[in-house]
C-alpha cells in the first residue's frame, strides 16, 4: 500500500575505517590523507559525547566503526524498518567544509562522492546519495555539484551547519545556483559548529560541554542559515530552489518565524527585495527533518499546534539519524505524530521535495 512507504532522509554512513577510500583520492594528495590517520584530516570536536556518538547496540564493521559498510546499514537501518528509500549522508565527513585547506577539502569531497557512488549507491537500489561539497571554495563546490549531478541517484547537495558565515552570504551563491540548475535540493545538516574554520556555536562563545552544543549549537546554526537564506533573497534569485534542514530540531521554528515576520515588517528596508512574509517563503522552499523530534513532557498536542502554524505537516520529512545515539525509531516517532500527518511525513513530502531523483510518485 502506498501509505506504508517510508523514506528515511538522514541515514549516516561512515568513511572512517574504510582503507579503500584512499583509492578514490586524487593520487597527488593521497599520501597526505593517508598520513592523517583514521579520520583523514577532518577537524575534530573539542567536546564529545560522554559515552559514544553511536547506538551501543550496533555492530562495528571491519574497520571498527558502525555504519561503515553497506551490509551493516542495510541490515540495521533499512531492512528492520521496511525503509523504501534511505538518503545517505556522510557522518563526520560533513565537516569537510571546515578544513583549513580548501584544496584538501575539494579532494576529499570528490573522493567521498565517488566512493559513495561505487561502494553504496551501486550496491542497493534503495539507497540515494548526498553530494559532499567544499563550501569554503564555492566555485569548486559548484563544479563538484555539476560533475555529480549527472548521476540521478544523488538527490541533494550537502552542507554543514558550522560555517564561516551564514549561507545566505553572496559568496555561497555559486553553490545554490548549481543546485538549482541541476534540480538538486540543498541540504544543511547540523554539525561542525566551532570546528576548524567555523564560527563558534550559539553566539556566546565556545561551549564547554557536548550537552550545550547538542542543545543550542546544532539548532542555532540551522536557524541562522534559515534566516540568512531568506533575508538575502536566495529564493528570489532561484525560485526553483528547495532546501532541507537536517537535525536542527523543529520546536523552535514557529517562534523564529514569528520573530522574523515581525522584524520584516519593521526592518524590511534592509532587505527590500523580500516582498512576501518570510514565513511564506519558508513554507514554500524549506523542509525540516523530524529527528531529533523534541520530547515535550506530555505537551505533544501543543507542539503539533505550533508546528501547524509554521506549515506542518507539509514541511516535515522523516529522518532516523541512524547510527547515532539519539536515533529516532520510525515506528515510535511516526506513531507520536497526529495520524493524518503520517503519510506526508513518512514519504509524501520527501517524494515532492526530492522529485524525480528520489523516484517516488506522490499519491
Amino acid at each position, binding site marked *: 500500500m502506498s501509505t506504508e512507504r517510508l523514506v528515511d532522509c538522514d541515514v549516516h554512513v561512515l568513511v572512517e575505517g574504510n582503507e579503500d577510500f584512499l583509492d578514490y583520492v586524487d593520487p597527488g594528495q593521497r599520501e597526505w590523507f593517508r598520513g592523517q590517520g583514521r579520520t583523514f584530516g577532518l577537524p575534530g570536536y573539542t567536546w564529545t559525547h560522554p559515552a559514544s556518538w553511536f547506538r551501543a547496540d550496533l555492530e562495528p564493521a571491519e574497520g571498527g566503526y558502525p555504519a561503515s559498510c553497506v551490509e551493516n546499514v542495510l541490515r540495521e537501518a533499512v531492512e528492520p524498518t521496511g525503509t523504501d528509500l534511505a538518503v545517505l549522508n556522510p557522518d563526520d565527513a560533513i565537516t569537510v567544509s571546515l578544513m583549513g585547506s580548501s584544496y584538501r577539502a575539494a579532494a576529499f569531497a570528490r573522493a567521498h562522492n565517488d566512493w559513495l557512488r561505487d561502494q553504496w549507491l551501486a550496491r542497493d537500489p534503495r539507497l540515494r546519495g548526498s553530494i559532499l561539497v567544499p563550501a569554503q571554495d564555492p566555485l569548486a563546490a559548484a563544479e563538484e555539484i555539476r560533475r555529480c549531478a549527472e548521476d540521478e541517484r544523488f538527490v541533494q547537495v550537502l552542507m554543514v551547519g558550522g560555517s564561516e558565515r551564514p549561507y545566505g552570504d553572496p559568496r555561497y551563491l555559486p553553490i545554490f545556483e548549481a543546485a538549482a540548475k541541476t534540480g538538486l535540493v540543498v541540504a544543511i545538516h547540523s554539525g561542525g559548529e566551532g570546528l576548524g574554520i567555523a564560527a563558534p556555536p550559539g553566539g556566546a562563545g565556545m561551549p564547554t560541554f557536548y550537552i550545550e552544543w547538542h542543545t543550542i549549537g546544532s539548532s542555532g546554526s540551522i536557524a541562522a542559515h534559515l534566516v540568512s537564506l531568506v533575508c*538575502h533573497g536566495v529564493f*528570489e534569485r532561484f525560485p526553483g530552489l528547495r532546501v532541507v534542514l537536517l537535525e536542527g530540531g523543529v520546536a523552535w521554528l514557529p517562534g523564529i518565524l514569528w520573530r522574523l515576520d515581525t522584524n520584516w*515588517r519593521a*526592518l524590511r*528596508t534592509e532587505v*527590500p527585495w523580500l516582498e512576501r512574509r518570510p514565513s511564506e517563503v519558508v513554507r514554500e522552499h524549506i523542509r525540516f527533518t523530524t529527528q531529533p523530534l523534541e520530547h515535550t513532557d506530555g505537551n505533544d498536542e501543543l507542539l503539533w499546534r505550533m508546528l501547524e502554524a509554521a506549515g506542518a505537516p507539509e514541511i516535515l520529512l522523516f529522518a532516523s539519524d541512524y547510527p547515532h545515539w539519539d536515533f529516532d525509531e520510525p515506528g515510535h516517532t511516526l506513531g507520536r505524530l497526529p495520524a493524518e500527518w503520517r503519510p506526508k511525513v513518512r514519504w509524501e513530502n520527501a517524494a515532492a521535495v526530492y522529485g524525480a531523483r528520489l523516484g517516488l510518485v506522490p499519491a
Partner: protein
Amino acid sequence: MSGWHEIGSVAELEREGRVVARIGGRELGVVRDPRTGELHGLRNRCPHSGAPICFGSIVERAVGAPGRYATTGRRVLRCPWHGWEYDLETGRCVDDPRMRVAVYPVRVEAGRVFVEA
C-alpha cells in the same frame, strides 16, 4: 459624530509635519508629506500596537532585487514605534493588509485644517 472637524492650523502643520486633535473620543490627525506637500487625514493610532502614527515619517517605499536597492517614488507612512509602513491613500499596512488605519478626507480653509470623519 460624523462631519468636518477642525484639527489645527496650516502654520502648525507646515512647521511640525502633522496636527492632531481629539474629536469625540478619537484622536484624528493630518500629516503633510514634506517632499510633495500633500496632506493626508487619518486616525492617530497604529492598528499594530497603538502608536501615535501621525508622529511617524512619510518616506519612500524601498524596493529591490536581491543585493540591489532601488526606489519607486511610492510614498508611505512609517509608524514611529515599530516601523510598519502604511499606504497613505488606503490606510492599509503594505506588508500586512489585514492591518488598516482609518483615513479621512482633508480640507484647508482660511489657514485652518479640517478632516471629515
